[in-house]
């Protein structure tokens, strides 16, 4: 860059010193203008016939001196680049050959391959063994919030879509949380420990967001409510046992409550001890099988896990990871917020109208559900898909078109949200968000993939044990 270039820039109409800088790159070398800016300014000012102060300077930008990226990164490299959260049971998973996946800040056991197994073989086996006997899963990463105070039920009524006033202590219920825009934000099982105390669970990734949202409403909109929130995510290790033999594995360790269906039915919870540790025991299921979730103070998580693991050997119990959890819940049509829903899905779209308290005058997001666009019948709705060829596992994210439509650009109806090989059914299953999906029940659609189009039939989302008998063993 020479003085001639600056004069040329001015003749080309670059009258602002910022234009001169950008046109000539004057001041952009490693000296960042410390050598060149004043000289450049004087040359431009002469050419413009204006005094230098009238022409002005470009904005000086930090840093003063070129500084390495590594200096800015500081300690944040390798394992310290970002926090990796691990549960108390994670070390056992590592010792026992788990493959992990990152889920928000956590790393979670994805599947537990045995010698020679790939992910498909391992997951098929974990699914088979859980449904046949019993499987154990580390659910500790689920977010947990303790909601306490005389207005706890009222607060829950205002936050979640569901009604909470009549939920008896010792019972739990699926809870659905919307944003004020009416779209699904989070979900989880919520237990009423006592009249004034709720044990709320959230998704793994949603824990911090949900607590922040609750605090925001409580502190800024409803400061009159006598209720307080405490994060208990890390207070508890959560171990899920699912399968027809789940009760048999658990029973020897439980003191203080009877596990029979009569005394402890589905969606009940009890405070008791398990393996000698104080525990909150939930009878819930995310697999469709008889299921329990044991919460013990997290420092005892691994000890209890090992006890149950030893006991489980009598029943050929398997341990399973998040992938098998995903398959088993999909077979039952249970959604995963963030996978089967995104930030554009209402409760009605997801087939969850049943989770809305009909008599409640208000809850967060309720008003938005009656905006004109929310009432259209051709909204994207969550349905099941069964491929014509049962061996074809659709790709998650694949787009869906009308049967026979081969145009480009195509009229896309929606996309596949979840798709798996179902070992229990001996075929593939999928869930999808499709325009006017509920009305397409029984009709076929196409999933065009490069070089090949798959045809599938729209179904309901419950593929396995539609009458829900296995939960009540």
């Amino acid at each position, binding site marked *: 860059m020479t003085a001639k270039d600056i004069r040329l820039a001015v003749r080309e109409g670059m009258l602002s010193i910022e234009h001169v800088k950008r046109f000539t790159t004057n001041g952009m070398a490693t000296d960042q203008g410390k050598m060149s800016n004043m000289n450049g300014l004087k040359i431009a000012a002469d050419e413009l016939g204006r005094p230098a102060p009238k022409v002005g300077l470009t904005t000086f930008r*930090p840093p003063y001196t*070129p500084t390495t990226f590594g200096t800015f990164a500081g300690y944040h490299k390798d*394992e310290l680049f*970002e926090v990796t959260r691990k549960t108390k049971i994670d070390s056992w998973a590592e010792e026992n050959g788990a493959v992990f996946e990152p889920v928000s800040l956590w790393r979670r056991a994805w599947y537990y391959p045995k010698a020679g197994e790939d992910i498909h073989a391992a997951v098929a086996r974990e699914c088979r063994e859980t449904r046949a006997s019993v499987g154990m899963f580390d659910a500790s990463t689920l977010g947990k919030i303790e909601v306490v105070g005389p207005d706890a039920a009222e607060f829950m009524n205002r936050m979640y879509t569901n009604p909470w006033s009549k939920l008896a202590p010792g019972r739990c219920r699926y809870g659905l949380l919307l944003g004020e825009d009416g779209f699904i934000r989070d979900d989880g099982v919520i237990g009423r420990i006592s009249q004034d105390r709720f044990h709320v669970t959230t998704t793994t990734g949603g824990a911090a967001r949900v607590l922040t949202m609750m605090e925001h409403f409580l502190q800024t909109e409803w400061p009159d409510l006598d209720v307080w929130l405490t994060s208990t995510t890390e207070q508890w290790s959560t171990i899920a046992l699912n399968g027809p033999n789940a009760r048999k594995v658990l029973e020897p360790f439980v003191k203080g409550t009877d596990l029979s269906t009569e005394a402890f039915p589905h969606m009940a919870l009890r405070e008791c001890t398990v393996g000698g540790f104080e525990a909150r025991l939930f009878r819930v299921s995310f697999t469709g099988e008889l299921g329990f979730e044991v919460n013990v103070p997290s420092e005892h998580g691994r000890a209890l896990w090992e006890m149950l693991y030893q006991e489980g050997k009598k029943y050929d119990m398997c341990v399973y990871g998040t992938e098998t959890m995903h398959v088993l819940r999909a077979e039952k049509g249970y959604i995963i*917020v*963030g996978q089967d829903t995104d930030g554009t899905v209402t409760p009605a779209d997801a087939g969850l109208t049943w989770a809305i308290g009909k008599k409640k005058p208000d809850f967060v997001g309720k008003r938005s559900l009656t905006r*004109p*666009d929310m009432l259209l019948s051709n909204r994207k709705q969550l349905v099941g898909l069964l491929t014509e060829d049962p061996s074809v596992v659709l790709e998650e994210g694949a787009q869906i078109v009308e049967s026979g439509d081969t145009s*480009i650009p195509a009229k*896309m109806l929606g996309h596949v949200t979840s798709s798996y090989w179902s070992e229990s059914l001996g075929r593939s299953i999928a869930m999808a968000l499709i325009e006017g999906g509920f009305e397409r029940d029984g009709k076929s659609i196409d999933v065009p993939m490069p070089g090949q189009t798959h045809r599938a039939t729209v179904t309901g989302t419950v593929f396995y044990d539609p009458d829900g008998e296995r939960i009540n063993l």
Partner: protein
Amino acid sequence: MSKFSAVSLLKGALTGYKNVEPQWPDAELKSEYDVIIVGAGGHGLGAAYYLAKEHGITNVAVIDKGWLGGGNTGRNTTIIRSNYLYDESARLYDHAVDLWDGLSQDLNYNVMFSQRGVMMLAHNVHDVQSFKRHIHANRLNGVDNVWLTPEQAKEKCPPLNISPSARYPVMGAAFQQRGGTARHDAVAWGYARAAAARGVDIIQNCPVLSIERGPEGAVTGLQTARGFVKAKKIAVSAAGGTSVVMDTAGVRLPLESYPLQALVSEPVKPIFPQVVMSNTVHAYISQSDKGELVIGSGTDQYVSYSQRGGLPLIEHTLAAICEVFPIFRRIRMLRKWGGVVDVTPDRSPILGKTPVQGLYLNCGWGTGGFKATPGSAHVFAHTIAQDEPHPINAPFTLERFETGRLIDEAAAAAVAH
């Protein structure tokens, strides 16, 4: 205005460029225009150009409070791509890519559009699902975007760390070959020169004080620092200042303005062939023709017009760059700067008519407006000239915030589990 050509450049070189003309005249403000565009960035200058070229409307002024191209046009990281999920967005941005393709010839000005390809890294199972959803939607919309394995990504971009033991391992990438970069200043200058050549007045350093409306409610003109100017139509395209200008016409907007930062390294020899983006670790990087690594950071959390942002964001961005590209650990940052981005609730733009007769709005591009420049300008000119949106921008109304018909690309990429 003379045409740039090999002959004219050679002639200039031989004569020491003694006779070059200003690229655009510094126009005097007239008392009346058919259309006044507020904001002389790429979108505003482009709209003026297309008004003149395609709609024969040349009694047009583009007014800016500062120097042209001095807002986000001159402050962004120049990434161009169109691999958006929803039909509405894909059409809008792909229209832009189509126009980028011939823009240098159209304007007779080299905007240095380089289709080096844009790679977006997937770091977890959720990213993989989300990117594949984009790829399939793009394919069926006729937009190029393909899936790369980690090895294929590494082959295209050798500095990439694909170690499976990384905190955020690369599990694959979505790659759009038609994407790339352009020289941001040249885009503003090229449009300014081409618009001025067709008779458009470019008025710099002339702050707009208010939009004036008549008794029927329609716009009548603008109060400016240089006095009142009559106008039949007013189009606001003033990223970073939109809320303030529109407020004077009594139109309140679903907009918030945040600082967005970018930075460059010292120049190095060509080493980085593509544009690489990683949403999960928050890093965007490409190498300019000068050799600098151009890096985009995130927005600060608070509303601000200060054109600067906090250092913690830069630290995080550079840590992320070092994680994904360990070889850049010892390269040095030369300078950082900030822009002001207008963000809508669904992070898609508002591009169309307003409740006020004769008032048109182009705003809310958030962190991604540069890539849309020619497409946005083109359909905005159509909307102004016809008083009717072009089919491509018809969905991007202000009304959608009332009906709930949002176009929320970010929500579609929701992260949870």
